[in-house]
């Protein structure tokens, strides 16, 4: 992986002009980022890409997540054969941290971490989601290991993964109401199965 410089700030690269963002970041990008942005250069699919501190990151349109993931998994130069992690961030009230979130009026961001055992490189893929459309296609068809990660994301954040074979709670009990890691879930709210509500 080539050495990166921390030249460009996130702010300067963000905005609605996707193509321009990608062009701006080319100087600050890696082999992986170049490969992905070249592949999807003629679409609006990649919202934003950077390689800050050597961590390759792309932000993609949530509706196209399967297309992107298929390419990342099966492309001969990328071969991301391992899904390391899948999690969600709730940016309620903090959307200004990433300007593209404000532009899309997105509240959540599904974060995927991918690794290629063959090529020894990594990539972070982020998909912003609006509160009222908190659903995204499941990637269990590409990486079977995403199954329980998506169940956990559903359990704690209430993100619906469409096409998941068994989308039900994994950590909490079925009687639990709501999704406790959402920012609007009160930190003092308790709903035990038995005993006092302490």
């Amino acid at each position, binding site marked *: 992986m080539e050495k990166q410089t921390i030249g460009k700030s996130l702010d300067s690269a963000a905005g609605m002009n996707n193509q321009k963002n990608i062009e701006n970041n080319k100087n600050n990008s890696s082999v992986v980022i170049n490969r992905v942005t070249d592949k999807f250069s003629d679409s609006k699919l990649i919202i934003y890409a950077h390689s800050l501190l050597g961590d390759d990151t792309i932000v993609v349109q949530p509706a196209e997540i399967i297309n992107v993931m298929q390419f990342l998994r099966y492309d001969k130069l990328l071969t991301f054969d391992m899904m390391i992690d899948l999690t969600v961030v709730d940016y309620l009230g903090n959307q200004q941290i990433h300007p593209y979130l404000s532009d899309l009026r997105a509240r959540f961001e599904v974060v995927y971490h991918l690794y290629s055992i063959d090529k020894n490189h990594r990539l972070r893929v982020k998909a912003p989601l609006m509160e009222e459309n908190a659903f995204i296609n499941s990637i269990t068809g590409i990486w079977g290991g995403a199954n329980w990660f998506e169940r956990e994301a559903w359990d704690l954040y209430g993100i619906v993964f469409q096409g998941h074979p068994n989308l039900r709670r994994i950590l*909490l009990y079925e009687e639990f109401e709501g999704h*406790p890691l959402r920012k609007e879930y009160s930190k003092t709210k308790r709903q*035990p*199965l*038995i*005993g*006092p509500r*302490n």
Partner: protein
Amino acid sequence: MEEGSFGLGVIDESRSAETVLSDSVVITQLDKIVAWGRKYSFFLYPFVTACCGMEFMSVAGPRYDIDRFGAALPRFSPRQADLLMVVGTISHKQAPILVKVYNQMTEPKWVFAFGSCVVSGGMYNNYATVQGIDSLIPVDVYVPGCPPRPEIVLDGLIKLQEKVETNPNTMMVKGIATVGEADDRKIT
């Protein structure tokens, strides 16, 4: 019947049980001898859920060795156990299981709260964690620590032994834990 046989006639001091058997026996009360036996033969049920389990292994192993106190034989059926060792964080999802295990234990039975999470919820004051198992079942010994050192566990075990030996309440039947559906009782 011949005069002088047991149970009849004049009491012959020279033939009383104490005199005849002299130093061969010790006269005591049944409660005391039973408590003494129980004190040195805990059959514990390890309800291990979290990182405190590592410290439990340490205290059960040869270096600290709870076998010296007669409490080394874990039983993995609550029917055969009389000391419930609750080791590690109890979540609301596990609370019904814990109460079921406690209710399946036969009398007399004792509960050992091992670690801060079991005592009070510890550092977890959130949607998932029971704030102390004494809100569900009666607890005999509280051993805080995150995790507790083996020395304090042994101290707790010795205190429990003293309690078993001296406190007449431990001889009483505790009955099942009467924890029902979730309610709004506050622990003060």
